[in-house]
């Protein structure tokens, strides 16, 4: 039982990182129909900022908060520079613009941080023990942050006028424009908020993943898997998919074989998509009017 609980918590923690990343990608996908390959840049950017700020003596918490603001601004800039100019372009150039962002971002981070470096965990290193189960506070923080963001997003989308504007834009771009919604502004804000979600995931992961230009590669891949599993464009789907991928990978490694690793998540998605191609919460037709 101890082994199961230990693996489950570790899986949920990893899954929370994937889910937060997937949430950011889903927001962008819903608002703009663009699959953002450059999301790894947001994941890296905040830890890089924190790394340099803490080295300069800025307290960790303050540095983390400042980095989130920094990534929000970065998100605005990236959207303005790469997506707005391609607002009316075909889908493929838009996606390639995000790929370009990814490579440029990785290049910049590689030039700044050649050797992977560590930033301390926000919750310290002291482990909480419940019976034989060791609870890493950073793991619990990841799970907690995911829950908070999920609730916040649901409230914003369902209960606020901003949410209604976002939903209207997502469901019918032309209709939203006709009723006076500034869709370009919606895109801009969505992109920046999604960037912050990626940054939060990065800050939670950084003490384990270490800060480097490659830190986002695996996590973003797994987030894509989670998105596909939960259903592209679905917020609950992104969360459930991310968590399922994290837990499946861990439990499969523990109980089947450590050689399976991330392959278990891909196997799961294959099985689910064979039965339900649109993913768990996805709808069969994802095209926007």
């Amino acid at each position, binding site marked *: 039982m101890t*082994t199961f609980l*230990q*693996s489950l918590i*570790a*899986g949920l*923690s*990893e899954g929370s990182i994937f889910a937060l990343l997937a949430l950011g990608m889903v927001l962008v996908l819903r608002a703009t129909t663009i699959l953002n*390959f450059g999301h*790894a840049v947001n994941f890296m950017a905040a830890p890089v900022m924190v790394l340099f700020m803490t080295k300069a003596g800025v307290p960790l918490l303050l540095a983390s908060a400042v980095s989130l603001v920094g990534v929000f601004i970065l998100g605005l800039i990236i959207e303005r520079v790469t997506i707005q100019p391609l607002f009316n372009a075909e889908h493929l150039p838009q996606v390639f613009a995000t*790929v370009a962002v*990814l490579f440029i971002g990785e290049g910049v981070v*590689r030039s700044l941080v*050649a*050797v*992977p470096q*560590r930033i*301390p965990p926000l919750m310290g*290193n002291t*482990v909480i023990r419940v019976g*034989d189960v*060791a609870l*890493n506070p950073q793991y619990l923080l990841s799970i907690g942050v995911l829950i908070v963001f999920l609730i916040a997003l649901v409230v914003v989308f369902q209960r606020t006028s901003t949410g209604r504007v976002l939903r209207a834009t997502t469901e019918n771009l032309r209709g939203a424009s006709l009723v006076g919604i500034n869709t370009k502004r919606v895109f801009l804000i969505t992109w920046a908020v999604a960037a912050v979600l990626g940054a939060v995931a990065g800050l939670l*992961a950084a003490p*384990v*993943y*270490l800060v*480097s*230009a*490659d830190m986002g*590669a*695996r*996590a*973003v*891949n797994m987030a*894509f898997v989670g998105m596909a599993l939960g259903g592209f464009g679905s917020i609950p789907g992104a969360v459930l998919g991310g968590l399922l991928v994290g837990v499946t990978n*861990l439990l499969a*490694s*523990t109980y089947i074989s*450590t*050689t399976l*690793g*991330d392959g278990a998540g891909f196997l799961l998605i294959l099985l689910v998509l064979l039965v339900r191609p649109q993913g768990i919460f996805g709808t069969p037709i994802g095209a926007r009017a």
Partner: protein
Amino acid sequence: MSRRKITSTIIIAAGLAVTLTLAACSSSGGGEENGGGETAQGVTADTIKIGLFGPMSGNAAVYGKGINTIAAMYEEINANGGINGRQIELIIEDDECAGDTARLAITKLIQQDKVFMLHGGECSGAVKAAMPLIKESGIPYLIAGAADHALVSPPTKNVFHGWADNTSGTNADMEFVTSYAKQNGGSVKIAVVTQADDWGKGWTKSFKEALKESGKGDSVEIVKEISLAPDTTDATAQVQSVKSADVDLAVVYAYPDPMSVFLRNKSQQGLDIPVITGQGTFPEDQLDRLGSPEAVGKFFSAYCMADTLDSKALAPFKEATAKYYPKDTFDLSSMLGVTGVPVNEQILTNLGDDLTWDSWIAQAETIKDFEAGAAQPISYGPYDESDPNTRLGVTTCQLAYLDEKDPKGGIAVIAPDWSEWVNR
């Protein structure tokens, strides 16, 4: 298309383009003139051009510190007047610890930069990928820290190891494990955790062979064999698996990144057994990554240096690094493969003006019990396709660990015998 796929496509396309361009531009890159003739590429009246390569960025960039020390030692040779009046001109390339990039770097160094010889390579996978190019060209090559035994077994005529390969490290590991058995009732149960790639498998294979060849293998029961992904971010499954196997020791062959993940989870999940590894993952670096002395307690790394980092023997390397790479914290990573420099200095000095590839190889084969200062004496021998030792530099390693009560005190070095640690 996935990011990895896109990356691969771009790398392959770029690789093809560069290779074709270089092939078109170079008429006789590795021609006869480099072999037995009077002149060789990369040599002038005043300079000898050496191509140095290694992981200067990426996940294994910590090994780039070894390349920095090698470069610093060459700079120091230059500062002291060079070799027979010639300055060493270094061209440093980043192989990113990746096969594709290493092949591009080697092609560039040989065909475009036209270096006299190659030095470097800290990652076995990257060096293995580039080895056919090096072998085909015939250019003299001194391996830095890349440790896979397959790099020298079977030996390649123009390739010499300036450091220890994994057999040296796994012999130390084997001695430590079997001595534990001897002093604890005559047997020991161990788990072997292997990084899931050629590098990790090479180490585990070498460890098992060392056990078999030692004749002490019967005292060691490998209860659990598990793998660890190089890009893992959680090793709970591995730690729990080792824990449930109820073993005395764990032998773990993994790069610094996955090792730190394993050690972190091991410490947090209360798995209190010694961990033994080869010479590529160092205690100080792990402390840096983990920030927790308990996590690196009972962590033993094969140590192939002659003495500790603060010793007189290693002082020239430390001073050169401080002089030319002041930002580098001098640690075990900084020493990875550096003995090749004094060896090469000796070979080039002996050669005088006879600087051809064939003469360099012939001169290297005469190196016998050479005191490189940093490690055990180095010997090579006439090429024998059945004897890897004709090309292997350092063959003896010890073990290093950090005292968890005084982690800032630096590493302690012991002979690979359990009683050495018990009686520390």
